[in-house]
Every structure is written in C-alpha cells, then in structure tokens.
C-alpha cells in the first residue's frame, strides 16, 4: 500500500477572492457555493478523483474555517484513503520561524515535505477558483508524450480579451517559447488556466532557487514559469476546449450559475461518468406547493417553494413564501424569501432572511443609467427587514 504516487495534486485554495466582497468575508473563495449544491472546490476535487489522482494537498490560508470543515476527511469525494487522500495544509511554524504563504510558489515550497512523502514523478498545481470539468490524466499523458518539464493548460480566449490573461506563445508542436502576463498587444489567444504539471525533481530545484532569491515574488506565473523558459526548459501548452469559467467577480459568479440553465452551454453535470461530488445536505426532496410557479430553474433538496421562480438557482433548504417572486437570481443555502418579496438579478447569501415585500435588484431594462445597474448582493446571515429596498449593484453586508 505504501508505494509511491505517480502524480500528486496541490490545490491552491488560500485566495481571498476580494472581488466577491461580502460573499468572501467569512470564507475563502473556493468555499463559495455554486450551482445549487456545490462549492467551487468540488470541481477541482472531483476532477482529481475522476482523473485517478488520489492524493491532493489543499493549501489554505485566508478564512479557512468553512473550507476545513467542508473538506473534512475527504469522504464525499472518495478521498479518504489509507495512503494519500485529501489533506488540508495551512501555513505552519518551524524551528526557524513561521510565515504566511508569500505567493503561489512559496506555498508549494513550504509544503515540499508533504509532496516528498509520496515520492511522485509529477506534481499537478491547481487553483480553487474555476468551474470546469477536465481529465487531468489526459493532460499528464500529453506531458509524458512530449517529455516536457512543465505543461500548462491553456484555453483559447477571444483575441480582444487576450490582454486580460497570461498568454502563452507557442510553436507548431505546442511547445511554449514565450509567456506574457497581460500583454498590451497579444501575439496569441492561448490563455493560461493556472493548471500546471511539473516534473517534481525539476520543480523542486526551481522552487528552492526561487526561495533563495529575495527579489522574487514567489509566484508561478511571475517567477517560476519565466525562469524556466529563460533557462531553456521544455514547456508545453495543453489546449483545453471545454467549459471553463473564472468565478472571481460577482458578475462572473452570477453568469457561471446561470450557464447551468442555458442548454447551449457545454457544462453537463448529469454525466454519470464524470460526477461532481459534494458534501450532501441531509434533507427531504423539495416541495412545490399548489401556489408555486417554477420554470427554467434548478432546485435542490430541502427547499419549499410557494411563490414564483424563474431562471434561478436555489440551494438546499431555501424557502420561498407565497407571492414572492425570484427571477434571474441565486439563493444560497438556508435562506428565506418572505411573502411578497421580489428578487431580481441578485445573489442572496447563506442563511439570509428577506422580509415581506422587500425588493432586491432590478431588471436591466428598468434602469435608465446603465452604469448604475448590476447584480445586487445580500451577504450571508443578513436580515433584511420588511419593505426594505436593495438597489441593483448594491452590496449588503449587515442587517438593514
């Protein structure tokens, strides 16, 4: 049983996700709920286990409480293993002192002894910020076939958006000759997805060197990858063409949820051969009352719907009372929308209470000044009292 592991995954889950504002005040971004019953981290974790990778280190730093509890012993993802499995790796103290993770590369550097325990040939670096289904085993095959030192997963983005990404410029054989971070005049549209496979021995050497360099910001994109290119190491770009979405902003989180309701979007969660696993709530099936109207929506267990629901996603245990209307919105676990409330283009956090006849958000066509329109957000555990109004684009972090 105590054999080596061919490939160990390291999942960077320490991100604050500051552009999700109130939603990430009490939890790290990978713990943010998504798609009715998931959290963002379910996607990389499920991808790992579906790809045959059974050893995953999850690097946490910012607000780790929710994430730690959620991951637990890894059983929901079948990652409770006698050897390997999922391990949460927070920063720790050593005899020479203690420090926070200074950057993505430093986070891995500080946990090299964890990786060494499994004596892997390859290390897969992942981030906990994206919604996608990907077979890492195929990427590893590509890496081995090319005899590469590092393989970077890339995605074609529209050329006009390329300057927002880290862009890989490649030769015909998909080997990388140049990496440009947010180039003003991009030469290609292959954007890095923040997914890397390294030969462990090589990465070990570069991490150690990078750590010794005081001027380095200890980041994969800024330091490790450019240095490897400079030294003439073999870097390859692995092109991914499925659904991939960064959910780093309120708008993109809202869109990524709404994509699940769009039949033209290529993110199929029903595929039995590539299930997305999650920690399931223990509640009965949802109940749709005679007074309810439900269309174009996703609803999960423990919900009770007595009002109207259209183009929306409800998480476990949400109650929508009679006469309430929820449109184009996301309502996270345990929240209650009381009688007569109208929720439009909004994200309602966990355990929120929306009082009677409250208005949250508005349809874009009803707002004259488009700069004032955006998705409205009510943060977790907030109580919105009867009759209150939450404007479009407004963020509510405490009771009103």
């Amino acid at each position, binding site marked *: 049983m105590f054999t080596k592991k061919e490939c160990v995954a390291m999942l960077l889950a320490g991100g604050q996700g500051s552009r999700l504002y109130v939603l990430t005040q009490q939890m790290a971004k990978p713990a943010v709920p998504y*798609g*009715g*019953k998931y959290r963002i981290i379910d996607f990389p974790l499920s991808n790992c286990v579906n790809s045959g990778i059974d050893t995953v280190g999850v690097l946490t730093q910012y607000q780790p409480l929710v994430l730690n509890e959620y991951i637990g012993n890894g*059983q*929901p993802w079948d990652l409770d293993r006698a050897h390997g499995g999922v391990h949460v790796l927070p920063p720790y103290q050593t005899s020479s002192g203690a420090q926070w993770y200074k950057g993505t590369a430093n986070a891995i550097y500080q946990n090299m002894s964890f990786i060494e325990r499994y004596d892997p040939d390859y290390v897969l670096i992942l981030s906990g910020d994206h919604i996608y289904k990907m077979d890492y085993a195929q990427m590893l095959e590509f890496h081995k076939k090319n005899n590469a030192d590092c393989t970077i997963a890339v995605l074609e983005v529209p050329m006009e958006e390329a300057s927002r990404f880290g862009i890989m410029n490649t030769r015909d054989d998909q080997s990388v000759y140049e990496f440009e971070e947010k180039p003003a005049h991009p030469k290609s549209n292959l954007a890095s997805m923040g997914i890397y496979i390294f030969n462990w021995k090589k990465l070990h050497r570069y991490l150690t060197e990078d750590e010794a360099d005081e001027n380095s910001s200890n980041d994969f994109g800024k330091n490790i990858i450019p240095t490897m290119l400079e030294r003439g190491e073999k870097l390859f770009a692995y092109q991914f063409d499925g659904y991939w979405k960064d959910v780093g902003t309120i708008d993109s989180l809202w869109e990524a949820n709404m994509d699940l*309701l769009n039949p033209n979007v290529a993110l199929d*969660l*029903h595929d039995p051969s590539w*299930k*997305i*696993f*999650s920690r*399931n709530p*223990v*509640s*009965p*099936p*949802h*109940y*749709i*009352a*005679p007074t*309810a*109207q*439900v*269309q*174009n*929506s*996703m*609803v*999960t*267990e423990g919900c009770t719907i007595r009002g109207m*629901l259209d183009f929306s*996603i*409800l998480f476990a245990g949400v109650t929508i009372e009679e006469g309430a209307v929820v449109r184009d919105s996301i309502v996270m676990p345990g929240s209650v929308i009381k009688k007569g409330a109208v929720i439009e283009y909004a994200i309602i956090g966990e355990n929120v209470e929306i009082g009677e006849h409250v208005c949250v958000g508005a349809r874009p066509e009803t707002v004259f000044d488009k700069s004032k329109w955006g998705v409205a957000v009510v943060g977790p555990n907030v109580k919105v009292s009867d009759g209150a109004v939450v404007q479009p684009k407004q963020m509510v972090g405490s009771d009103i």
Partner: protein
Amino acid sequence: MTSEKKVLGIVFANMHDSAIKELTDVRTMGSVPYGGRYRLIDFTLSNMVNSGIDEVGLITKANYQSLMDHLGSGREWDLARKRGGLHILPPFGHSAFGIYRGRLEALGSALSFMHASKARYVVLADCDIITNMDLRPIVEAHIEKEADITVVYQKKKADIQTSAQSTFFSMDEDGRVVDVLVHPMVSGEFNMGLDITVMEKSFLENMVVEALSRGQYDFARDILQKRTNQYRIYGYEYDGLVLSVNTMKDYYDDNMALLDENVRAQLFPEKRPVYTKIRDEVPAKYGLDASAKNSLVADGCIIEGEVENSILFRGVHVQKGAKIRNSILMQGTKVGCKCIVQHAITDKNVTIKDYRMLNGSAEYPVFVAKNGVV
C-alpha cells in the same frame, strides 16, 4: 448514554415482505423506496441513531442484495464504526430449522452477535412503519416499570385486511399487557403493536435459547401471547405520527401523505434528520415549459412537462408535454413526450414511451414493475 444504559438495536429487514408483494418481489421490505429519496429502513435506522444507539444488527432473509447496496458500510447513518456500528446478519442456515421461520429462530442465529455486544438493553424493530420516533423514552419506561418486555403500540382503526397482519394488545391500568391477539380477522379500533420491542439483552438471550429448545419460533404467539402471565410485559403508547404499510393502497397513501406540510414536519423534524444513501445527483432542473404543483421532487430530476400531486424520486425525467398526476415515479423513471400518467406507481428504471397513457385510480393505482417498458 452511560454504559449501564447502552442499547443495542436489532432490525428485521424482511418481516412483512408479503404485505406488498409487487414491491418486495425484488427487494426486502427494508429496501422499499419511499418519499422521493428514502428506503423504509432509513426511518428505522435513523430513529435508532438519533436515539443514541450506535450498534445495530440487521437480520435479513431473502432478496437482500438491494439492501446491502443501499447500506454499504453504514456511513451515511454514522454507523461505520470501529466499536459497534452496523452489522448485517445474513440468514444463518441452521441444521435443525434451515432458514428461520419466525422471529425467535432469526434471533437464534444472531445470538453470538448479541453476546459480543456490551449493551445492556436491546430494541427490536421492523421496517414496515414510517415514523420519526425517539426511542429513549421507551427504554426509560421499560426500566421504570421493571418490565421484562415492553411493546410499543398505537391506538388505530384497522380493517380486516390490516388486522390480519397485526398484533393487538389489551393492558390493565398500570399498562401491563393482559391479553394479546395475533393476526385476528376483525375490524375496529385497537391498540395495534408497532413491532418495536424493548428487552434487557440477557433476558432476550435466555428467552430465545429456551424457546428454541421447546421448538417455538413465533415471538408474538409463543412469547407475547402464551407467556402473558409469566412475564412482565408492558405496553408503551406512542401518539406521534405512524404510517404503516400493509397493502399497496397503504403504500400509495403513505407516499401521498407527504404532500401534507404537517406530515412532512412530523417525519422530517430539523433536530432528528432521516439519513439515506447519498447519490451525488445534480439538483432538479425545470425546463422552459415546465409546471409543477403540490409535488415532492428529488435531486437529479429533469422536468420539462407538467407534474401535479406527485412524488418524483431521484433521476426522474418528465419530457415535454407529458402530464403526471397523482403518481409515484421511482428512481430513474423516464416519461416520454405527451404521455399522460395518472394514479400510477412506477418502480425503478421504468420507461414510458412517447404518447402512452397510464390511468389508474386512487383505490387501485396502476403499478409498473422494475425496469418495465410501457
């Protein structure tokens, strides 16, 4: 719970299988699907776990493959333990009586399991009732009355068909059982036994050994009825909600009862959740022209048609234009375009092709067997 009060649970998965033959042909009573995502045994096991019982022996007899598949290691009920936890006790063929004929013989083959347990008390339960019951007060009452055997009952109206499968008790003012009727063909209001029994473990062990040595195997007739005077048998009245499954009509009504908010609140109270196997299904999806009213819908369903007064288990697909009314569609049922399904029960993985009509009645719902294609 202190060790002097530690309780062992013993569950009979197969008792009453003949009550709903259509459903138990391919499974045990315990693995009969219920309420959109449950199996009947989930209620029995969850009641035990929520009452602090962490050691459960499960006695099986026949067709228990689906049950084993459902329970796995018992993790979902928090019964995957190093100490105690869930023990499945497959039928132990005895040279004297083959596979058990009655409860006492079944317990006879579980003697070594019981012997190994450090519990002082035992709760016996079946899988044919749906209830969310705290078992602790029953054990307390058993101790307080210094009873040998405590049986749980409920005042209920019964028709001839139901009473033919039931045990009725009469008690004196103190609650001691003075008369027992086993499977009488009568109708009226009775103190109907719920097949939940509390005993001290050592008492049960001795009783089983002795009864078997006399060739007795029927707990209700040979112990409760014949030894009413010899043993201190007490009745415990339970007045919470109990739905029992004696006929297919009961099965249909018990499912439909869940559309009543009050029933759901009593069966699924927040503090005593009902655990079941996790299947990692996607949340239910409602399509563009979907309509749903007064229905219970589980995860993994895709609803593109109309659903009313119905219970949809996990992974049911209702295609465009189909109309489902007053029906129970079990896991994986596929309903084709423009079908009309009324008063029907479809077992697992049934396919109803486009434009088909299924019409039953509330008194006699149509039943489509597992994997059936209509």
